């Protein structure tokens, strides 16, 4: 166990190091942060002052070493734009994104799995056709377009739901979240749908495929021969067998939803990290981009770690250390 954790940990450090290096070089290649930060009528003297104060006058490798040294001491640098520790900027906005992402994910799973099962159990029926056709809409149009349509339909024309911002927050068990107020929920619905439409389709399709592939297997037949109810066969025998691809995808998608909530957050003016990220990239606010990536990559590492554990829980054949 310890060996394993240490190994993963060292690997992760390497990954994070590489991430930081790529970002440093990448941002350097993209452009000059000064150009983005400075006011349009700044004098050369002001410019020089800013460059020195942000440490951008030093060679890149030196900037990197300074960063790495500070990072080792738990300091991921201060945002050029906000002059605040980039990590606190990220953690300040992470809850909003988590809330959105998790809601979207739950939405995708809670709706996607039953629909997928339904359509997999009754292949080629009208229900199946309807579900499968419907699910295509979920991913055939770019999500910015879908988001705009949601706003147009539900906010502008029907006036049912608010279209921007995060809404009121409530507190429950010490967690502040907009999930706990009606107003907050109302604000959450549209962006969560927007974010989850693609995943929803994916979950539906994966579930359906899994069901279709699993149903003809002998153990399902044996389960029937044991007189199990169809419900148990579907929800235990079939479902557990299709969990592996589902878990993989959910793990992947949870991460990617987090990482790519950018579009949704921009359109719905959701105060999350996606928005912060795109702004930071566009303004070349390197410390924030680096810190963000370190956080997200760590998150991916963690999610994949959990997914690996789940694999071995779900399918006992995986990761069976058989040799001594």
């Amino acid at each position, binding site marked *: 166990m310890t060996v394993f954790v240490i190994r993963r940990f060292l690997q992760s450090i390497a990954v994070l190091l590489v*991430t930081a290096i790529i970002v440093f070089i990448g941002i350097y290649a993209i452009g000059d942060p000064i150009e983005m930060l400075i006011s349009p009528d700044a004098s050369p003297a002001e410019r020089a002052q800013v460059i020195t104060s942000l440490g951008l006058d030093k060679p890149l490798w030196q900037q990197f070493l300074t960063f790495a040294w500070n990072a080792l001491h738990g300091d991921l640098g201060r945002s050029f734009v906000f002059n605040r520790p980039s990590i606190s900027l990220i953690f300040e906005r992470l809850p909003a994104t988590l809330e959105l992402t998790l809601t979207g994910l739950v939405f995708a799973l809670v709706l996607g799995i039953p629909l997928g099962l339904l359509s997999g159990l009754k292949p080629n029926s009208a229900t199946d056709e309807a579900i499968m056709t419907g699910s295509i809409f979920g991913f055939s149009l*770019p999500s910015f377009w879908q988001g705009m349509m949601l706003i147009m339909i539900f906010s502008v024309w029907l006036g049912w739901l608010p279209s921007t911002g995060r809404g009121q927050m409530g507190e429950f068990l010490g967690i502040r979240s907009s999930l706990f107020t009606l107003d907050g929920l109302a604000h959450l619905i549209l962006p969560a749908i927007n974010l989850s439409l693609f995943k929803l389709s994916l979950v539906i399709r994966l579930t359906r495929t899994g069901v279709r592939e699993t149903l003809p297997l002998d153990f399902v037949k044996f389960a029937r021969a044991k007189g199990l109810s169809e419900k148990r066969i579907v929800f235990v025998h079939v479902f557990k067998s299709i969990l592996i691809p589902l878990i993989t995808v959910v793990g992947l998608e949870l991460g990617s939803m987090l990482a790519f909530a950018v579009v949704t957050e921009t359109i719905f003016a959701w105060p999350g990290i996606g928005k912060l990220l795109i702004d930071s990239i566009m303004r070349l606010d390197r410390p924030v981009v680096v810190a963000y*990536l370190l956080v997200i990559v760590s998150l991916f590492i963690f999610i994949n770690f959990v997914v690996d554990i789940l694999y071995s829980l779900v399918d006992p054949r995986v990761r069976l250390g058989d040799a001594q």
Partner: protein
Amino acid sequence: MNARVSSFRDDTLFGRLVMGIAESPKTVIAAIVCIILLFAAIVGPYLTPQDPYDLAVLDILDSKLPPGSESMDGLIYWLGTDGQGRDMFSAMIYGLRTSLGVGVFSGVVALVVGTVLGLIAAYFGGRIDALIMRIVDLMLGFPTILVALMLLALLGQGLWKVIFALILVQWATFARAVRSAALVEKNKDYVEAAVTLGISTPRILIGHILPNCLPPLIVIGTLQVAHAISAEATLSFLGIGLPITEPSLGLLIANGYQLLMSGEYWISVYPGLLLLVLVFSINMVGDRLREVLNPRLGER
């Protein structure tokens, strides 16, 4: 004996696929649509009344004309024009070409790369697995936008760079998906049997394990093509995609979507519909392929 053998010659994999598609009318339609669209994309330049990429033939005087309008030089814009005075029909055919190219090509390359790496990771395990999977973690963490922007800055603008960026961000998804499926498959006895028969590792990976990992892969793959097309659109929407003078379907949609509300619907809606039809038919065919490829389901 030989006569009997040859009577089953049509029963090749390809034959199966064709038969399988032919048996489902809606898939036939979808396949035909796919082929038509593919054809249109390939011979596009010969079909369109205008070369929408040639600035010299565009005229802003013709911009934002509604469908059916007549241009200054007598041409009818059946689907209207965009903000630059491009004939929407021509722009869509050209855009289809780009979108299909970007979506399918990046999807396929990412699929191949991801699949190979995922299989290798699952099969060999240990350090190789760790290395590949950590790279996957890293790639998954990198936002498409940042990757695209870096490539744009490093390599400049262009179709191939966008494709490259999309490959870079997509392969990891495939790798992870394949690995998870292959982890289960590699422990199955048929793999052992193949090893016993002295079949080389690449062959086992590709010829034995992979086919059994295909179902989720095809689902993700067909979806990913759609995803790549919209990702390209999103990149273009964010201004880091294709050259603006050579709009893809996604870019057309992105350019037009702000105008939806002001009544100039055609700039966004028609390319949107085309994209929908395209993705729809690709997925129909993909779904059917998956069923046909499964011997237990195909036999019907």
